[in-house]
């Protein structure tokens, strides 16, 4: 038998009264994955992660971390696993360092030098003496990562780690995730931002209203969604006619822009043609599908299927 997957969920269901927060979710995260768990607010990401970490009991189904079930094996199921759901929380009346010391002791003790190390990684060393009560959201988020790293995890579960951060904080957090992934840590991170998942993850599951509507490689998904191109010009009507004449079917006008799908070679060809026709181009850029468009796309597929 091969090693058990870092993370496996089978038929996870969580009901709150009539609301089905998580509806028969299956997930498999393989070693070395940076797995994106993508879905809009309220889709059930946090609830799924809570079940995976053993914080709440599934109504049905089960979760396994390296083959162990948090409900059966208790804290032992979290061996080699670390992470947080929603914003990481700490004792506000203790300093950052004391919080880490406490959590390290709950894991069986940790050397001071290791605490310094993880504080350095998240760049909190100089604020470690201050009480967490005075930390900003971003600092708490980084302390959450530090607390997770103290466990030397093989699997890291991060629930929307960049939500609520300012742009610089987001960039740093994404850099940190990349760095940890490159060190060989398997990561599952939830997000409601497609671009973020695109930047960080190799595999993705998309959840909507508690149900997984896609699970697989991210590049395949984006290909199938066919981002296409956007053309901005002062003469969109004429440009569209020209594109159609060049065999680019489906070129359409939307919000004063021309949107179309084509191979790169065809795009080059029409750009020359546009110039020759005297149609100025202010922008011709590849278009990234938004999460909403992906959803639209997939629901259409669902309807067809």
């Amino acid at each position: 038998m091969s090693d058990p997957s870092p993370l496996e969920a089978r038929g996870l269901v969580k009901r709150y009264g009539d609301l089905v927060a998580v509806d028969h979710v299956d997930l498999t995260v393989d070693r070395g994955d940076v797995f994106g768990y993508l879905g809009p607010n309220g889709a059930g990401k946090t609830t799924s992660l809570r079940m995976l970490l053993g914080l709440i009991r599934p109504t049905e189904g089960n979760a396994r971390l390296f083959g162990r079930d948090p409900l059966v094996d208790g804290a032992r199921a979290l061996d080699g696993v670390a992470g947080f759901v929603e914003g990481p929380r700490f004792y506000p009346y203790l300093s950052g360092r004391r919080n880490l010391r406490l959590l390290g002791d709950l894991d069986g003790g940790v050397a001071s030098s290791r605490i310094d190390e993880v504080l350095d990684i998240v760049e909190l060393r100089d604020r470690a003496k201050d009480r967490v009560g005075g930390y900003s959201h971003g600092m708490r988020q980084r302390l959450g990562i530090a607390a997770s790293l103290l466990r030397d995890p093989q699997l890291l579960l991060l629930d929307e780690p960049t939500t609520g951060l300012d742009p610089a904080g987001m960039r740093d957090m994404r850099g940190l995730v990349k760095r940890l992934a490159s060190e060989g840590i398997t990561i599952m991170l939830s997000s409601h931002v497609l671009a973020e998942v695109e930047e960080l993850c190799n595999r993705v599951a998309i959840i909507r209203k508690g149900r997984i509507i896609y699970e697989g490689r991210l590049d395949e998904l984006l290909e199938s969604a066919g981002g296409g191109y956007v053309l901005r010009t002062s003469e969109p009507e004429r440009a569209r006619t020209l594109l159609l004449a060049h065999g680019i079917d489906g070129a359409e006008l939307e919000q004063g822009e021309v949107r179309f799908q084509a191979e790169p070679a065809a795009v080059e060809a029409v750009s020359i043609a546009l110039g020759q026709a005297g149609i100025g181009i202010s922008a011709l850029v590849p278009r990234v599908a938004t999460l909403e468009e992906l959803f639209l796309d997939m629901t259409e597929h669902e309807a067809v299927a």
Partner: protein
Amino acid sequence: MTRVYRWEVLKLLAQKRTYLGLGAAMIVPLIFVTVLILKTGGPNDIPLGRYIRQTGLATPFVVLFFMSIWAFPLITALVAGDIVASESHNGTLKTILTRSRNRGEIFAAKILAAFTYTAVVVFAMGTVAFVAASIEWGFNDLTSLSGTTVSAWHGLGLLAASLAIYAWPMAAIAAFGLFLSTVTRNSAAAVVGTLMWALLMQLLGVLPGTESIRPYLLGEQFQAWHGFLRTPADWTPIVRALWVCALYVGAPLAVGYLVFLRRDVAGE
């Protein structure tokens, strides 16, 4: 387990309310002694109240009586009612439950920490009362509840034993506080609820018609120490307090434990 317990104690030591309770337990006897210094007369209708100016040993017993009504229950509830709920409030339950400790271990450490606090509060009150009163009235022989004379040093031993047996019904209040703290997830509700419960227990003890069950009510156990102060010692109330309080401690803790073990930790 020692590590988890140690951190529960350290957390208490880092919070204001701990010192609020502990401080109150130490200031009350000081106020009591000061008032008796400034005024004539004394609490003559209270056990040992008549001897309050004979020896510093009498004061801690008299203060025990006064504080058992609501002060000690409140001081205990303040911390025990908060010890699980504050984790819910701070959202730290999810933080500590995703480390390498089982829920049972965390809960057990909280029980021990709450009991430690309770015992410390009772003994702190006893010590302050004894020292302050002895400075004023001397460390003299004590007249027992049977009217016999007990040597000062023997009296000190009886005081220690009395404080220990007194801490046991206090532990029952702490246990109820822990239970409410777990179930309500709300510190204020748990503190107030625990105090109400302690007052209700006392009220039951003075209502007419409760005579037959009175020895088994919690309020009654606060007087178990009287047994030590009789010559010869009367073990009946002491033994009864031991097992009656064990039930008052065990029942809420068992329910609290089961709830804590199974409950969903979401958004806390």
